[in-house]
């Protein structure tokens, strides 16, 4: 293992984590229960808002709960689900004592890449199940498909990257739970602002190419920024 290339090691770690997850279902269970409970709450409390209309001071009528607002609530759900489930990825290795083995037999880059792929896989699976159910319950539309798909894919990638980085930092602290939220919040705010900006574009009547490149590209570049910075500095956190 120690003689193989870093990406081979990363794939091996991803497969190990995936097999362990399918056996124990710790992350999928906590994320799934949280997401389904939230969906049920949204379904019960928000359905009356679906067709509600308000009239502003200028006399224009608007939907009380429009598509960008529905998208915002969906991403709040994903953020909480990600932070509920993905924080275990590094903490689990430390608590079971397998982190030392990983340090001995794998490079730091391979560990970070393996954990990132695993978190993205778990989050992607949750998003694939939850998004259609949420759209059915709330009536959220796809809008511009050229914007909607990048929001979901690159937004999910960026969220997984933030969760992985924060999980790595938090696993080395004694009070990992509190630290997870404290470090994650500033990174999440930027991500959520970029997602909301892209969501507004997704449901606007006029979608021009520059706006698509700017708003969806902003999401992609933020994900790349977090991943590259984390990959460059991960060995400082990981190695003793």
């Amino acid at each position: 293992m120690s003689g193989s290339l870093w990406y081979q090691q990363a794939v091996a770690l991803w497969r190990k984590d995936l097999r362990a997850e399918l056996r124990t279902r710790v992350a999928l269970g906590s994320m799934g229960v949280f997401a389904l409970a939230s969906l049920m709450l949204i379904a019960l409390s928000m359905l009356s808002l679906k067709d509600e209309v308000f009239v502003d001071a200028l006399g224009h009528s608007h939907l009380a709960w429009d598509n960008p607002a529905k998208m915002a609530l969906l991403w709040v759900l994903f953020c909480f689900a990600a932070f509920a489930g993905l924080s275990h990825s590094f903490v689990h290795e430390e608590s079971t004592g397998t982190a030392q083995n990983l340090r001995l037999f794998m490079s730091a880059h391979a560990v970070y890449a393996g954990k990132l792929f695993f978190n993205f896989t778990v989050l992607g699976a949750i998003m694939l199940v939850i998004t259609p159910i949420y759209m059915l319950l709330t009536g959220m539309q796809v809008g511009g498909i050229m914007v909607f798909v990048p929001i979901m894919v690159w937004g999910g990638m960026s969220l997984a990257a933030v969760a992985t980085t924060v999980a790595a930092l938090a696993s080395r602290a004694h009070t990992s739970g509190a630290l997870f939220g404290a470090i994650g919040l500033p990174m999440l705010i930027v991500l959520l602002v970029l997602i909301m900006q892209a969501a507004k574009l997704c449901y606007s009547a006029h979608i021009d190419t520059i706006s698509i490149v700017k708003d969806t590209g902003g999401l992609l570049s933020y994900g790349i920024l977090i991943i590259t910075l984390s990959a460059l500095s991960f060995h400082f956190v990981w190695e003793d």
Partner: protein
Amino acid sequence: MNKAVLIGLLIVSGAMGFTLWAFSSSMTPYVDIHQAEQMGTRVQVRGKILHNTAHWSFTKHTLNFMLEDSHKDEIEVVYHGPKPESFDTAPETAATGIVQKQPDGTLVLESSSMVVKCPSKYDDETKSALRGAYGKA
């Protein structure tokens, strides 16, 4: 320097620049009245409230007043929303909105959000007035 680190730093600087460019459109810049008229996008204009021009409409829920910036340019602000409590005593405000042309050709700042500056009891004029009232040097 390690080649991988150098490539990483190049990617970081590129991604940071692009993210900042994308993030900048979610911010509303502070501009003067002349720039606000030219831009035609959502901006923040800071200036002095000309209280003798202020008018609150109960039926439309709008607050109309003239705003004067540091260059002594003036613009009419139409603020849609509840009247801020401290508006009548506030010397200055920062109104967020878009400058729009009215049917009669006048330019109006249609504002949806406004931050009013509280009158300070620590500024020079008030301090000297207080000193005078209490007979201190």
